[in-house]
């Protein structure tokens, strides 16, 4: 049953969670992906295999990790190894989905989490790549989770921390990145987006409840591909919200940020 009373963080978590099929490997970073993976494990994907960069493989996400090396990233896991093994597992093609955030994104899914402004004299120095570049380079399909506004969705990112499709079709292969890999979905507080097969440019797939296509266009700083038929996102179900609020984040560490 669809719920009515939810905030946009909760919605993004539910949308991201539904993108995680059962019995699949997913590379999970801090924040929303952790909640989405926990939700997926508790609902439709009990055998989802979360992989965390410092070594956790196949943890049981009963409690939410607060850090990517935290105990909950390998609690009751199938293996607890180290960062090189994890990144090499991705290099060998074993990790299907990688979840990422960022401060800026461009039409090709290139991500910036390094600097705003000039690299040498930055206006804002952000944390840097962390594992993002590795995830975006090596997993088969990258799913990006971001707030949606014109400062974030830009024609050209200030710095390509993590490669998307770079400058378009064939670009990833041309620079040596694994064949057939790349951005797959973008989950925002307004919409679910994908990438056009041919042009590799970002494409609207579905708008969230109460959001119009026009809202999405206005909050995007580049030209979006708008297909003839745009779906409507299913709102969170009562069950999703209950599990999220009562079992996954009862202290409201993340979902209270609305």
């Amino acid at each position: 049953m669809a719920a009515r009373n939810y905030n946009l963080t909760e919605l993004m978590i539910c949308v991201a969670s539904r993108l995680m099929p059962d019995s699949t490997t997913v590379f999970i970073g801090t924040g929303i992906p952790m909640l989405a993976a926990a939700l997926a494990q508790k609902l439709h994907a009990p055998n989802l295999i979360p992989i965390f960069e410092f070594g956790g493989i196949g943890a049981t996400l009963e409690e939410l990790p607060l850090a990517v090396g935290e105990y909950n990233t390998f609690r009751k896991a199938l293996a607890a190894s180290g960062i090189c093994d994890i990144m090499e597992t991705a290099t060998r093609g074993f990790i299907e989905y990688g979840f990422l955030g960022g401060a800026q994104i461009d039409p090709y899914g290139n991500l910036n989490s390094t600097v705003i402004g000039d690299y040498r004299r930055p206006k804002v120095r952000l944390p840097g790549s962390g594992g993002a570049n590795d995830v975006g380079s090596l997993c088969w399909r990258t799913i990006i989770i971001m707030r949606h506004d014109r400062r974030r969705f830009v024609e050209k990112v200030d710095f390509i921390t993590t490669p998307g499709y770079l400058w378009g079709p064939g670009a990833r292969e041309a620079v040596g990145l694994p064949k057939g890999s790349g951005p797959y979905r973008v989950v925002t507080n307004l919409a679910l987006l994908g990438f056009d097969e041919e042009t590799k440019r970002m494409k609207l797939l579905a708008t969230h409840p109460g959001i119009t296509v026009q809202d999405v266009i206005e909050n995007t700083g580049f030209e979006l591909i708008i297909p003839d038929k745009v779906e409507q996102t299913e709102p969170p179900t009562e069950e999703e919200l209950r599990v999220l609020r009562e079992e996954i984040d009862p202290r409201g560490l993340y979902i209270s940020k609305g």
Partner: protein
Amino acid sequence: MLEFEIVEEGQGKLIQPPDIEAFREWNRQKPKALVDKLMTEQEAISRFVHDGDYLATELYGTVRCPMSLTREIIRQGKKDLRIAGQGVLELDLLLAAGLVKQVEITYIGLEVYGVSSALRRAVESGQVEVVSDWSNGAIAWRFKAAAMGVPFIPVRSMLGSDTLKSSAAKVVKCPFTGQKVALLPALIVDVALIHVHRADRYGNAQIEGISGFAFELARAAKRLIISAEEIVPTEEIRRYPDRTIIPYFLVDAVVHAPFGSHPGEMCYCYARDEDIIREWAESSQTEEGAKAFLEKYVYSVRNHQEYLEKIGWERLEKLREKAEKRR
């Protein structure tokens, strides 16, 4: 033979170029005898960390991280440090204390609590120079190259990105397949700090749970300081030699540091101290706040023992209770 050409070169700098032959000579003279290396954190830091050193710490500042050793570095005011950077609390404290000069960065931030204000202030003011940018994988692989004793390592990360352009990696065509790969230079640091679950007096060290990049960093450092929750007799090490991740001959000093990762956690031992982590995230937003935090938790105590007393045993006991045990 032209198939092995260099296609692209990053414009970032290296703090130290990889000198594998000098590293071999260094390692040769490290003692192979089983000598007692147990010492206080004061002695370990003052003997083995010097101004200007290139320093690395293992795992993130809230998880199995050498926080007690980091605080001692700050108390001793070791300065002009260069750091290989993936870090949360530990590198943030060093930055806030004004002890860092240069950084080869991959990520410095507060994870769930967002960007690091200390990093922003340090870099945006020009006080700290970011000499190059890398991915987490890249930094770990660079340690791995050093651990393998070779000057570089091929990987498939970083390609096509500005991260590569801001690094010191080189892209070449593989002479066997023609495909492009990134070559990363080995990263040998002057001194590394690693916190473990148990070690003997000689430095044989064992870790529970994920091993992060302890294996690689321990082998990529000229000097290595181990802090351990527990000092065990060598017989226990010899009973489970397959648990030894760091053999003694890599180690220069062993420090007994129960709750050495506090306010971070230690799996199967104690949980995170969320209030203090949040206290840092909040107070470090201003320079004054950061200074006050350092005064309260670092400068005003003489050593780790006094730090623990300040935190309070009752509180620490609760953190211990919160952690799942398996032994």
